[in-house]
């Protein structure tokens, strides 16, 4: 196996260790913990009073515009990273190119701002 793939095998091992740790904690707790469920215990917590309505409630997601903006800026970050690590080689040309790119993105942010998208809707 190549060195490259080997280093990513460690990534898989560490993810496995995280899962294993949770599993070990839960199995140890199984020895100590009691198990005496009552109907009241299994109700949802609503500050002590009987829960009202169906448990699966609906809620207004106020952030969906932010989520869209986030995707935009995150993709931008993907583009900036390779540029940032090679800036010394690219020099002035790379700088001007990226200045234009960042400017267009800022323009997008300003547009969303002016449209009132960044306000509490």
């Amino acid at each position: 196996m190549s060195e490259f793939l080997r280093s990513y095998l460690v990534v898989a091992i560490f993810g496995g260790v995280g899962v294993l740790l949770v599993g070990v904690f839960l199995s140890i707790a199984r020895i100590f913990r009691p198990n005496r469920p009552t109907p009241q215990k299994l109700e949802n917590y609503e500050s002590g009073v009987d829960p009202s309505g169906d448990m699966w409630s609906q809620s207004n997601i106020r952030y969906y515009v932010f989520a869209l903006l986030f995707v935009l800026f995150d993709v931008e970050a993907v583009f900036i990273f390779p540029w940032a690590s090679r800036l010394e080689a690219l020099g002035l040309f790379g700088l001007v190119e990226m200045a234009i790119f960042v400017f267009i993105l800022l323009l997008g942010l300003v547009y969303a701002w002016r449209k009132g998208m960044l306000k509490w809707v």
Partner: protein
Amino acid sequence: MSGWIDTFFDSYWGPTGLRTLGGLVAVLLPAGALVYIYLFKLMSFVQSRIGPMEAGPQGSLQLLAEVGKAFQKEDIFPRKADKIVFALAPFVVLMSTFLLVLVVPFGPDAWFVNLDTGIYFALAVSSVSVIGILMAGWASASKYSLLGGLRAAGQLIAYELPLVLAVMGVVIQAGTLNMQDIVLAQAEGEIFGWGGIGNPFILTQFVGFAIFLIAMQAELTQPPFDMPVAESELVSGYMTEYSGVRFLLFFIGEFATAGVFAMIASVLFLGGWWVPGIDPDSNLFNIVGPAVMFGKVLFVTLLIFWFRFTYPRFREDQLQRLCWKFLIPISLLNIVVTGVLKVVF
């Protein structure tokens, strides 16, 4: 017999096993230390009270008592909850922490994995925890949990942007994404031709450091950015329906992630395992490196927890406004200015 051991440690599996053990220590030890030193002791000091004193000398065994308590609690699944997703959520959160610690170097040869895309990988896996939190909030089928989960998702994705953009300044200065090379770039760096103390990027990237700290505070949902778990509004947010050891796992995840994020911050801005005045190739750093890192982690987390204990909670819209109208424009400007200075000088 000894030949068997020697070949085992010369092969791939020996070092990898040691690294896995090291990873467990690197995640759990800072988490425990942070809870005891800051959450128990410093918080009590700030709030003019004594804090836990009964368990062990100066209350130092309180942590064990708390863990033991959580292990004895009944494991309750709400009747209406989506049981599978509800049970999986803590796995996802802890897994994200372990993937995050992976790229942090503790010495010239003391690393878990030396990825060329180190910091990029770290930023990518740090957002996996959002999925775990959304799973917990949604699957509980509780109103408090749902609101908490949605708030957490909105906050974590928003503050990931300043976090990523603040790192960009460091990447421009170091010219690499590899965490080990970022440390070396700081050790061998010069500020206008003077390399006496190298160039810890906190000196030239202080704007980036400030943005990174603020965004980190929000990513960790520490007050004043703790609306997802605001106890006076949402009981405990997405963790409301979790009890016993599952709640403990979320708690461990929170503080372990605080420790790991502080490690990443100290690698990026404070020089990582390196201290000025010693050759960075010296074998000494393989031994003292982890201790140096631990000291820097305590410094970064001191800042975070000091803010946590001092400031009142933001309102939800103030949180989003601070991010979108202040931090992101500033960090974009920071990138452009850093780029210009890099090319000019």
